[in-house]
């Protein structure tokens, strides 16, 4: 413990606070709040009741008013700390509220009703997590079906993305042919065309080939990503050509060179692309919304949209389900992040 304290209070030059020490702390704490604050806010808010979400000023932690069962009343009553007309302050249960007047009873002696102005009473609150935000959607809402669709779209699209992009990248990095750079330029050039421009023609194509209202219609248009081809190609350029020559001498076919030499060595880049692809496909909203019309085909993101009605947005459900949909992306990052930095391609040489 003392080591931790010594570490945290270590200062430039050893003694005295230099302005850079203060700046560093401010910078790091500020960064932490900026980066982690919204995520924390989301998670904590997802446990709030609708009433509390609408409350102003907002609180960080989810609270609920304490309740008590009082003899003579069917439902539990909310507890308040009230300033009574005689000047004393007591914890009372509210029977009902009429206009600006609250009718309170003492839980221990429920016979007498006190009338107090609502400004003179404060709710007694405790920290309570509204887990029903999470459980109710599973009961009323086809969450599992949406989850299944989302997982299918994400996994299949990512696998096809990795396969097709790495094949294109292999050809563009390891084969010399006329027009190679032009092809690469065309592929990367498509990055400049935004989805909103493509939406209508893409829809026509999908509907013409009969993929409208099918999960394959969501998957196929997204699998050829210029970013992926470019990223993999740049990585494959660093794989020494001598390895490929050695494989050719070893009677390997071109497919084997790709599958058994280049692909395993490009694993770090593939992992990066896999992370990107999972995040893209999982978070995709506009394109699935356009393609899918039957409710049982909805992906999670489209499904969540049903909570945002024209007149009423069910924030508590949206927040809770957003947290649930974030979990897979977070898991993917945790398990694949080590590939982002690690590279093993160079170790067989010199």
């Amino acid at each position, binding site marked *: 413990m003392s080591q931790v304290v010594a570490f945290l209070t270590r200062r430039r030059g050893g003694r005295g606070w230099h302005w850079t020490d203060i700046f560093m702390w401010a910078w790091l704490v500020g960064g932490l709040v900026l980066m982690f604050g919204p995520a924390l806010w989301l998670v904590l808010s997802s446990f709030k009741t609708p009433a509390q979400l609408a409350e102003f000023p907002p609180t960080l932690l989810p609270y609920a008013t304490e309740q008590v069962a009082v003899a003579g009343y069917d439902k539990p009553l909310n507890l308040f700390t009230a300033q009574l007309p005689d000047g004393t302050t007591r914890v009372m249960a509210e029977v009902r509220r009429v206009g600006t007047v609250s009718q309170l009873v003492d839980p221990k002696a429920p016979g007498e009703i006190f009338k107090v102005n609502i400004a003179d009473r404060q709710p007694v609150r405790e920290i309570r997590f509204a887990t029903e935000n999470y459980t109710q959607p599973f009961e009323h809402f086809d969450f599992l079906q949406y989850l299944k669709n989302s997982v299918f779209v994400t996994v299949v699209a990512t696998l096809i993305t990795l396969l097709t992009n790495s094949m294109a990248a292999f050809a563009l990095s390891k084969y010399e042919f006329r027009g190679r750079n032009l092809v690469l330029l065309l592929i990367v050039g498509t990055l400049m065309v935004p989805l909103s421009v493509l939406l209508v023609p893409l829809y026509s194509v999908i509907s013409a080939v009969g993929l409208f209202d099918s999960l394959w219609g969501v998957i196929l248009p997204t699998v050829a990503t210029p970013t992926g081809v470019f990223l993999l190609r740049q990585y494959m350029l660093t794989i020494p050509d001598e390895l490929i020559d050695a494989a050719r*001498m070893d009677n390997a076919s071109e497919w084997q060179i790709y599958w058994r030499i280049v692909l395993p060595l490009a694993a770090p880049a593939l992992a990066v692309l896999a992370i990107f692809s999972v995040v893209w496909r999982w978070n995709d909203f506009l394109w699935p919304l356009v393609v899918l019309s039957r409710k049982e085909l909805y992906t999670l993101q489209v499904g969540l949209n049903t909570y945002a009605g024209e007149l009423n947005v069910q924030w508590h459900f949206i927040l809770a389900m957003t947290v649930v949909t974030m979990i897979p992306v977070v898991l993917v990052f945790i398990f694949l992040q080590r590939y982002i930095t690690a590279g093993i391609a160079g170790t067989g040489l010199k």
Partner: protein
Amino acid sequence: MGRISLTNIDRAYGKVKVLHDINLDIQDGEMLVLVGPSGCGKSTLLRLLAGLDKPTSGKLAIDGRDVTRVSAAERGLAMVFQSYALYPHMTVRQNLAFGLENQRMPKAEIDARITEATRMLEIGQYLDRRPGQLSGGQRQRVAIGRAVVRNPTAFLLDEPLSNLDAELRISTRAEISALHKRLATTMVYVTHDQVEAMTLADRIVVMRAGRIEQVGRPLDLYNEPANLFVAGFIGAPRMNLLPCKVKAAAPGTVSIEGPGGLSTTIAANGEALKPGDDVTIGIRPHDMTIGMGSKGALEAQVTLVEALGPETVAHTLTADGQKLVAVLKGQQLDGAGGAVKLHFDPAMAHLFDRSGQRVTYVRSK
């Protein structure tokens, strides 16, 4: 069998021609060393042999079969790369087995061949390691092992020792030589190091700028270099090459004059020479002595003496600025030398004409 013949091989990359009309016959079972300065086309030639590159024109045959357009895999050759090119994601065993698996060889035979090769190269204890966990010398052995298990018609080795440190290089060189004797398979070995070439080769091919300068046994190249380039390239320290003028020429003898008061007569074919022609005389540093001897004396100033113990290397400069190196037996020239007289036996000198071609007679031994 492993006889490889190249006929009129040309290779050009666009307009840049890197190989000019290469004709070469590689005998079955010989160790042929391709040597030359970097950029001379020796590696390109090896890649053409391997089938990793195709000649622009010409014919390449292995054991009489035309393989000019045959792919690398079907030529039955094995190659050891300069960087070793071991597959970093596979263990040593997988590295060795990869080529055999691709030939759809039965597993039992693959195992037998790997066992045999690892025993021969003493890499048995590393079989389950990856290349990244091996030292340079061990990787080198694995790279050779990968070629050996293939049981190829011929081995192609592209500067296999250049990534090793000096000590390991010498021992590995001896091992490669022993391996060649043991397997008696054709080996084509590329290097830029003439010492490697001299020690390993049955025959040496000296290349320069995409052309073959001379082909021959190591000592033939040393004793009778065909031209100035080979004379300067083979032998260490380099042969002293001095510009001279012909004084008198006859069919059997040529008299020349040169820097440092050089004046001598060499038994050479002077038919094409006439007095006043520019020629170059080549004298190996080891053929020079100090003091004794009357024939062919050169006056020079000693600039540096390297006393190595068994021999002394003297760097000298003639009055007209020609550098001369002499390797003297034993320990001579104590301290800085001053003026010396360098002697040599004209019978051991080499004469080259204006175009750099050798004109000396073949020396009687």
